[in-house]
């Protein structure tokens, strides 16, 4: 029963994480990734079998007292998944810290909560003429696969030139 609940919880966390990651906005992205790591940590926790009140370290005496290895296994808590989870937590802590810093920088640069590409989409849809003007400014070779990304790079890398172009 507990195992089923754990599995359901992992699934729920994954579902919520996926929903958040697919939303527009970078804070939701961070939260969604956080939910992913929690889901995976719980899944790792489940791999050690759920036991209650069982010791993780067993000495030779209790092996003899239990009689057989199978009887011992029934009353034994596997400590290894917890070590794995601790490692995973430390790593995800570092990753989250890094992503938060990145997103903070991006937020300071754009003044909005929008992810790469979304900004250009919003810019283009908000102003009916924006798409046209942006396209007009692009060099011919840029008419390709990752147009919005390219626009953004252009816009970011040479903000002063874009302003000049806009004046002309």
């Amino acid at each position: 029963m507990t195992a089923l609940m754990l599995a359901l919880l992992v699934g729920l966390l994954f579902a919520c994480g996926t929903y958040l990651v697919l939303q527009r906005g970078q804070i939701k992205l961070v939260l969604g990734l956080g939910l992913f790591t929690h889901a995976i940590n719980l899944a790792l926790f489940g791999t050690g079998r759920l036991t209650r009140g069982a010791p993780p370290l067993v000495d030779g005496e209790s092996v003899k007292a239990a009689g057989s290895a199978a009887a011992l296994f029934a009353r034994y808590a596997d400590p290894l998944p917890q070590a794995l989870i601790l490692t995973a937590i430390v790593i995800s802590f570092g990753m989250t810290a890094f992503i938060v810093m990145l997103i903070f920088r991006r937020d300071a640069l754009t003044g909005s909560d929008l992810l790469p590409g979304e900004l250009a989409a919003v810019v283009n849809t908000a102003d009916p003429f924006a798409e046209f003007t942006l396209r007009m400014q692009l060099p011919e070779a840029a008419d390709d696969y990752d147009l919005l990304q390219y626009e953004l790079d252009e816009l970011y890398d040479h903000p002063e030139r874009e302003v000049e172009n806009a004046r002309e």
Partner: protein
Amino acid sequence: MTPHPTVLILPVALPLLLGAISLLFQSMGPDRRVALQRTLAGLGLFANLAVAGFLLFWVLQSGPQAFQLGLWPAPFGITVYLDTLTALMLVMVGLLSLLIYPFALATIDPERAQLGFFPMMLFLLMGANGAFITGDLFNLYVFYEVLLMASFVLLTLGGTPSQINGGIRYVVLNLMGSMMLLLGAGITYGTLGTLNMAHIAVRMVEAPYTVQALIAGLLLVAFGAKAAAFPAFFWLPSSYHTPHPVVTALFSGVLTKVGVYSLFRVFPLFFPTLLATWQPLLLTVAGLTMVVGVLGAFAQPTIRRLLSFHIISQIGYMLMGLGVALSPSAYGVGFGLALAILFLIHNQLVKTALLLGGGAVELEMGTGKLSELGGLVHSRPLQATLFLVAAFALAGFPPTSGFIGKLGLLEVTFAAGQWPIAAVSVFVSLLTTMSMIRLWQSIFWGKPRLAPPPEVRAPGRTLWTTTPSAILVAISLAIGVAAQPMLALVQTAASQAIDRAGYVRTVNPALTEQERSLPLGIQSQPSERAGG
């Protein structure tokens, strides 16, 4: 002379130690700090290549080696495992990072150097070496994260807006891949009760198909995403053109190749039967990777964006080699894997040479846009020649290493009866040639359109930036002209990589006997760790 097995840990310990020491000087003045870090990094890269060369020599002399960290016997502690494939990759990554180092010395700006470029290079090397040499699935995950952490910092070093844009995509998509790897490792432990790769190899064959398929699928997705294979390649072209050109060259030689190496290591070892049954899947992924990569490259407006799409396309050839890894051929089983390894090495050499050449052009001209470049052959004949040779090597022309790799792969796929993928790969080679010629033409041919900014034309710098690509191109030509020794080497590597019994025997001979007495983790028993 038999060295103490502790040397096996040196590829990890050396960069880690030197990287840690070079972080000690944070409270010093920036100039002295950078000078010290630079010296330490140079020392570390040189020592690392020396160690890697020694390990290759050793493994060729006396066969695969294993070492238990902390001296716990095999399934309980962490194992490191060295065979010819590992040693070859250690040497290649060591060589590439050592050759990139002078380029970095000449071109990296003081600001990036102060932010810690050189220590991060050491940590990247440590992560890659660790991922090559480890014999433990969870440890592999940890080293992947070390590698990724260092690569995140290198990618966003300098913090320009486009770098942050590319960095977010790169971080998020790679994090997803790592999570799949972690989940795969967790499920492996939950079902098989072990994380040691030799022990997994013993137990995986006895596991039911569902378990095998689940773990294999998760690992394929995880490593495929790291290697930028077909469905999960978007992070690569949207991030590789943003950082300093040195970083792009380093990444192309190290990052995706670690993913490919992990596929080469894990699939023949864990899932020898799945390699046959999943062959259509692997070959489809390979074909789509090739086609999408090369078609994407046609539309790119800058040097590095174009080359980063070619990275993806070339990954497809390596996956094709993995797909036919165990197919029978005239040269014995495992010849497909041998060719895939040869192609991997060739690609590391040539791609890094191209990216260094293109990066030098970009740095000297101040732009990487193909529409603004042109006519550089007049002012830089040597660079133009090197770039042309490397471009033809990438396309697979004789007498370069690319010809040998592609010819061999074609032969194996024909022998395996996989006509469609062979046709696709030939077609993609043609497209690669066209794309590379177009690239070379728009950079070097025609009339000079843009005068280079005067401040970057120091003569010493050209020497530092050109020599690395010259050496790389020379090695590629040498492999192409005298292919026999290299072929023998990769055949040894492949035969050791598919030798599952040998792997287990090297790590711990007791693992196979233990299986008789211990219950398998799948059958309702928690794990063997309490009983051992």
